[in-house]
């Protein structure tokens, strides 16, 4: 299995006749996604590379039975496109558009939640389940089927991580880009929860960045609810406070949202954090080895707050000192919880 999208996904593309929409509709189709229709008001009855175009999402759903929508419409109209998709009964909406006003997104987010739908993004690269479906803009060529789940706030940095995994022979179950805006529909915890419940996923790579407190919330969730190994990377160790680093959400405000805090929180939850994306595969392999050599972990008997976590806490303390020195990014931090041999821990 996978999370959020699979072979049952029937996708419509909102903004299909635009430059990005038409290009990516074809890319998604070539990848094997069931792209059943597109929507551009006023262009109903035409087609884009054989994909039928409708005047409204309602029409598209009635004609195709679509269950997923991806949005490529320009920022001034994108929040309204989310409302339209949800009101047409689409349960999963992925918004790629970058630059949507936060005030519009707050209203859209509330509407999505009230309808019980799921929104991924905005300002995200979408998601990809190798061998089944791709929704968004991730390059299909870098993925391969496997058992590592990937969740990230970034776009190209995610590709870097996926490529490192693929090159090391580690395939992926699903890769999700959750987006770099302050208001996003699906956060780390939502994805981690889905990966924990997903049979195919055996380990998770989580890529965070400065700003907000979603990584800290994720660390808390991992500590209390996850038995599968999680490894991390946090971008922005070298970022100065008060400067927005491209993403609207990537800004250190006051004392909160720093990379050092996030790394410390993850370490304390037993999550090793790589110093470079290229080191992620080695950490994933160690995590998987641990699962194979430690049956309690697989069967879910590992108790939250138990011995593993207590020891991880002390390791994390050591590394958090490291991380706070600006010049030193933590080396591959291997937490005791991920070590197959407990004796290694005490050495």
């Amino acid at each position, binding site marked *: 299995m996978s999370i959020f999208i699979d072979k049952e996904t029937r996708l419509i593309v909102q903004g299909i006749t635009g430059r*990005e929409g038409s290009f990516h509709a074809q890319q998604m189709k070539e990848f094997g996604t069931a792209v059943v229709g597109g929507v551009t008001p006023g262009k109903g009855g035409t087609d884009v590379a054989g994909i039928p175009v409708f005047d409204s999402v309602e029409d598209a759903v009635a004609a195709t039975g679509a269950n997923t929508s991806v949005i490529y419409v320009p*920022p*001034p109209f994108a929040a309204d496109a989310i409302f339209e998709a949800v009101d047409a009964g689409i349960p999963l909406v992925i918004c790629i558009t*970058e*630059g*949507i*006003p*936060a*005030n519009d997104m*707050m*209203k859209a*987010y*509330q*509407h999505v939640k009230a309808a019980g739908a799921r929104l991924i993004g905005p300002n995200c*690269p979408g998601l990809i389940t190798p061998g089944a479906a791709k929704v968004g*803009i991730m*390059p299909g060529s*870098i993925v391969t089927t496997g058992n590592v789940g990937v969740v*990230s*706030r*970034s*776009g*190209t*940095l*995610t*590709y*870097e991580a996926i*490529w490192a995994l693929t090159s090391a022979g580690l395939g992926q179950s699903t890769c999700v880009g959750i987006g*770099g805006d*302050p*208001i996003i529909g699906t956060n780390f915890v939502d994805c981690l929860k889905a990966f924990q419940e997903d049979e195919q996923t055996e380990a998770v790579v989580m*890529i965070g*960045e*400065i700003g*907000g*407190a*979603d990584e800290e919330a994720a660390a808390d969730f991992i500590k209390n609810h996850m038995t599968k190994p999680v490894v991390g*990377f946090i*971008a*922005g*160790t*070298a*970022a*100065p406070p*008060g*400067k*927005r*680093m*491209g*993403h*609207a959400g*990537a800004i250190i405000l*006051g004392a909160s949202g720093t*990379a050092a805090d996030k790394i410390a929180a993850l370490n304390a939850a037993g999550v090793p954090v790589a*110093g*470079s994306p*290229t080191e992620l595969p080695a950490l994933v392999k160690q995590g998987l080895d641990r699962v194979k050599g430690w049956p309690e972990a697989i069967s879910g008997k590992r108790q939250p707050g138990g011995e593993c976590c207590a020891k991880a806490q002390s390791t994390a303390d050591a590394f958090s000192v490291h991380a706070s020195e*600006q*010049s030193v*990014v933590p080396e591959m931090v291997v937490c005791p919880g991920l070590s197959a041999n407990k004796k290694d821990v005490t050495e």
Partner: protein
Amino acid sequence: MKIHEYQAKQLFAEYGITVPAGEVATSPAQVAEIARGIGGPVMVKAQVHVGGRGKAGGVKYAADAVVAEEIAGKILGMDIKGLTVTKVLVTAAEEIVSEAYVAIVLDRATKRPVLMVSSEGGMDIEEVAAKTPEKIHRLAIDPAVGLRPYQARNLAQKLYQAPKLVRQATDILMKMSDVYWDLDASLAEINPLITNSKGEIIALDAKITVDDNSLYRQRRIADMRDLEAEEVSEVAAREADLSYVKLDGTIGCIVNGAGLAMATMDLVKRYGGEPANFLDIGGSSNPQKVVSAMRIILSDPKVRAILINIFGGITRCDDVANGLVAAFDQLGPTVPIVIRLVGTNEAEAAAILADMNLPCAATLDEAVKKAIELAAVPVTA
């Protein structure tokens, strides 16, 4: 986007919130003239986009116009946290009976604007928030409904007892909410909100930050941008539609994607170098953007090497390569350049760049190390 205090006060005043009489000035002589016009004691306040102006000596009391002129001479040109003061606001000095804090800020956790009030406003509000968080009262505003008058009134009652003050404060909070929504703010703050012995409530300071994503429909705010208050290179980058932040190091970075751009900076630091900037050329692969990026980075005299790191998804590597060829033709860079181009149309890019004999690297770590090595080589005159 941040606007200055004098601009924020003008906006609040238009919504009917009382602010002290005042005007902005760029010279001591002008300050003296404004102070004479106000009559009596004034405050001279540096207009810069950083917090903690008061503690840095950028806000001073002057008993009369002569003193104000003298003080303005010291504040104008002053450096506050790396920014030079070019403007001061001269306002009537108000008598202060009490100082409160009121703000509406976008809250990521609740995904709503949060209204915060505290009866202990002033310069030490951050300390109040840290040490006695119970003295700050919060309310998440429903984005579909907006702030209801009863909600504003309940919070106003946390600030004042006298019914006349509660009524005024309720009105001010409702107006702040209007400012927040009408102007697409991500922050609207008054600190301190003072009372005087006449029982009036006055906004002694004002801060408004507007969501960058909304500037397309907030033209008036966009036009308030003070180009003098920003780095010249950052202004040029915005005009070229590049996301750029200037830093102090020697390794110039050109990257696609914000996360990857941050990770690239982090690795420069990790391997012992110092990044000169954050620069994201964005998702499109317009070759002209590469030329603009190169021009901005080369204008930084500290840059000793440039690292170009592109992971092509939407961005096509051959477009970036064509941009590089154009940049070399037009700019003739004199510092070494390390290139890593992987992903979409990587082979085509390699063919385009084959003649140029540039140092290339396959992995991110390799590219970073190479750039640091080249930056360390002394420049031969």
